[in-house]
């Protein structure tokens, strides 16, 4: 029994390897940018440990350095991370047998990337708490390490914008978006969200463009299901 648990833990760590190769350049880019925006290594570590959400961390660091107030940073973080609702919801059928304590520990490590890996693994092999723990600890470990190292060496690099590092976040969004797109409905939803967000941003400014556009576009997607089959 104990050996079986150790085996599952090892499988989780092994499944984290491709995630870690993605987290290292993105995490380093975050650390470099954050340190150049005046973040200490300690606050970079704290953010990667407690928040652990790549896109939200990039956005928050940029907003804080521009002097945004706490409420708008936290609200934007919430909106950006609302997408994890779905990921958590789709993992829930596998977690009924876990204790609430284990469920809440596993939930902390859900990201776009760990979700993609754990969802397909559990669908084929069934769920074990040890697999999730191994996957999540190794993934977050690499994220923390990459962001902190980026923070330590970031200030020595000169202007990060010169190196193109500031484009890492947009590139990550492009990658994540195309990984999500599987059919015409997805394409319709993304075009609708993009156009609406653009119009709201230009007309109103601020940060509400994202949530309004996302809510309207997702609703349009549900309605369009009546006409579009695939």
């Amino acid at each position, binding site marked *: 029994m104990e050996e079986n648990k150790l085996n599952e833990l090892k499988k989780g760590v092994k499944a984290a390897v491709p995630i870690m190769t993605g987290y290292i350049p993105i995490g380093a880019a975050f650390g470099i940018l954050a340190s150049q925006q005046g973040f200490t290594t300690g606050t970079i570590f704290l953010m990667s440990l407690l928040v652990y959400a790549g896109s939200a961390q990039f956005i928050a660091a940029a907003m804080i350095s521009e002097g945004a107030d706490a409420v708008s940073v936290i609200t934007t973080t919430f909106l950006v991370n609302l997408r994890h609702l779905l990921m958590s919801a789709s993992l829930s059928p596998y977690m009924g047998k876990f204790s609430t304590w284990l469920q809440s520990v596993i939930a902390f490590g859900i990201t776009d990337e760990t979700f993609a890996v754990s969802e397909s693994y559990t669908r084929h092999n069934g769920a074990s708490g040890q697999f999730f723990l191994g996957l999540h600890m190794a993934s977050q470990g690499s994220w923390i390490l990459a962001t902190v190292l980026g923070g330590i060496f970031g200030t020595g690099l000169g202007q990060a914008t010169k190196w193109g590092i500031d484009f890492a976040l947009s590139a*990550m969004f492009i990658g994540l978006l195309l990984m999500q797109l599987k059919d015409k409905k997805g394409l319709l939803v993304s075009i609708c969200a993009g156009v609406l967000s653009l119009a709201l941003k230009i007309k109103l400014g601020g940060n509400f463009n994202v949530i309004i556009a996302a809510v309207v576009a997702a609703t349009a997607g549900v309605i369009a299901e009546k006409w579009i089959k695939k």
Partner: protein
Amino acid sequence: MDKKVILIILGMSIVTYLPRVLPIIVLTKVKTPEWFMRWLKYIPTAVLAALLAPELLVSGGTLELSLKNKNLLAAVPCFMVAYKTKNLFVTVVTGIVSMLLLNLIYA
């Protein structure tokens, strides 16, 4: 700066954790309507597109569709590589290298 940043980080950690934990805790106990799950399925795509469009097309508060827009230009190879490889690492490296080259050309 640090004290304000630490407070923001604590707030961020709460609003990040809630969407991760609540569905598991609640859905392992109760049943949700089917339409809601279908609606939720579109949220990741919609949020990403809504974040990305202004990032690539708005500069200084206005629509920027010219060759002066480096973000838009750097996005082109990113989209192609992401479409071909579906690999986050390769896409991010493509984006950074494209922006680096554009910075050299425009300098």
